């Protein structure tokens, strides 16, 4: 991982949409007046006849996408995660998930790394809400390469998909040849001192922590959980068996997010202690993305401290 080679996953989303649009005429994209921020405007520029701005009305956007999907289109509906999963929850539940319609929802600007806009715009509950819906697949992507895979994979799934992306630029972790599989986590390293389960923006921090710990003679592995649902139970149990300590870290409320998903698996299949790092049941606040990562203990240094503590 080259720490200086950075790109925001929302940017990768926009690029991936354009690629999909070239291959498949049934791809349509909707946005709710945020296309310049979610980067769906890249698709708009390339395929204006297949782009629909619904204005500031997320609920209507989700319903419209559902109607299009029922007629054979593959709609990607994009807006900030807080408005996608929050404002239009009932529409996603009753008009998309219940009828199992082929709608892809992209919640961009997730987590505290949204930064200066503050708590009202920092979505910390979307994983929790979206994974609770039957028929829904949930992706939470960590870098450019993974995002492009997730978008392309989402189009192949016949049913609702939620993709969580971020505003902040994050390091590109993977190279072009990396292979991903739906519901299969990516294991980075084989260290047995600890497993750091991460998702989204925290994956690169976990990788940095791993590299630093290696220098100190502590060997950990990082597990990038890009598919929150269906979760990779097999990998979680394997790591629980093979490593001494289990840690999860996420830019999301620790209630209902990545850590809870892992704890669910452990409780049923291989009871083991899990240390959940993340946002501890509170709202975010204004600040730069970096300042907030520091304040909420989401940095590699925080992971290192937890790995080394007793």
């Amino acid at each position, binding site marked *: 991982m080259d720490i200086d080679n950075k790109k925001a996953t929302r940017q990768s989303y926009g690029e991936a949409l354009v690629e999909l649009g070239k291959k498949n005429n049934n791809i349509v994209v909707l946005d709710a007046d945020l296309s310049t921020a979610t980067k769906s405007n890249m698709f708009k520029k390339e395929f204006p006849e297949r782009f629909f701005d619904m204005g500031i009305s997320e609920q209507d956007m989700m319903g*419209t996408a559902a*109607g299009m999907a029922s007629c054979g289109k593959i709609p990607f509906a994009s807006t900030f995660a807080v408005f996608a999963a929050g404002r239009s929850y009932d529409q996603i539940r*009753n008009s998309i998930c219940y009828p199992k319609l082929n709608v892809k929802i992209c919640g961009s600007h997730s987590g505290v790394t949204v930064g200066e806009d503050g708590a009202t715009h920092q979505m910390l509950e979307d994983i929790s809400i979206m994974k609770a819906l039957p028929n829904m697949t949930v992706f939470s992507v960590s870098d450019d390469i993974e995002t492009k895979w997730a978008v392309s994979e989402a189009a192949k799934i016949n049913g609702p998909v939620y993709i969580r992306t971020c505003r902040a630029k994050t390091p590109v972790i993977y190279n072009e040849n990396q292979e991903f599989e739906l519901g299969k986590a990516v294991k980075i390293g084989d260290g047995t001192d600890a497993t750091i389960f991460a998702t989204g923006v925290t994956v690169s921090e976990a990788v940095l922590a791993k590299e630093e710990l290696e220098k100190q003679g502590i060997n950990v592995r990082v597990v990038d959980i890009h598919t929150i649902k269906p979760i990779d139970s097999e990998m979680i149990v394997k790591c629980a068996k093979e490593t001494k300590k289990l840690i999860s870290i996420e830019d999301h409320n620790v209630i209902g997010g990545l850590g809870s998903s892992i704890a669910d698996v452990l409780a049923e299949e291989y009871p083991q202690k899990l240390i959940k790092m993340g946002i501890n049941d509170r709202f975010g606040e204004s600040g730069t993305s970096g300042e907030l990562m520091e304040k909420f203990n989401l940095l590699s240094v925080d992971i290192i401290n937890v790995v080394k503590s007793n």
Partner: protein
Amino acid sequence: MRVSDDDIRDLERVAVEVRKSVVEEVYLAKSGHPGGALSCVDILVSLYFNQMNINPEKPDDENRDRFILSKGHACAALYAVLAHRGYFDKELLKGFRKLGSPLQGHPDKNKLPGIDMSSGSLGQGLSIANGMALSSKLDSKGFRVYCLVGDGEIQEGQFWEAAMSSSHYKLDNLCLIVDKNNLQIDGRTKDVMNVDPLNKKLESFGFEVFEVDGNNIDEVISVLQKVKTIKGKPCAIIANTVKGKGVSYMENKEEWHGKAPNEEEFNKAIEELKF
């Protein structure tokens, strides 16, 4: 083209049979929503037996006209109309709202042929109809989309978001029908949360608005024909109806929004429902 008096009479006869089925569905289920189902029967019969381009043999034909029952609780009427139209066996109506039945308490598109969209949470149907109408235009398929909403239902904010979109995207293949029976669970719509003047509101949102007696099949059909000639904007039909229409003791009584008749009431209703 004017529909003949004989044809209208045949449709009215169908509507009576459908009403009997609605009452029986709710009676056997011991629960359901007879009031709002009975108010929209004549509209549904006009659509499914005369105006919509549909074929019960091919319920998934991609060029078919679409219908969305946004007021999903009125599904006893939709189920009865579909059964009488030949989409499925009328025997299935007896399982309405029962465990294991495809006739769910609110429509499920994946359980029953002929249901174009699941519904139940109010205020969502028009957005879905817009999405279908946009798809029809995008693929130059030319099918039309009909969306039936209740007058209480349009108190939901999403309905007005969707109304803006219908007009913004000039969806002239879309026809909104408001089943205006003036009652909702808590009482008269004008007392609970007034939606009037509805014609002016819809006009100002960019709809071509028509008003009609929604329990008069002759009138409903002629306005549905007129709607097809309007270009460049969506149409809305305000169908003035009577909640509980056809069953004397249910008519205009909000308490019949969501309860089933007992045996005596059921027999009285069946006796009254004659052509």
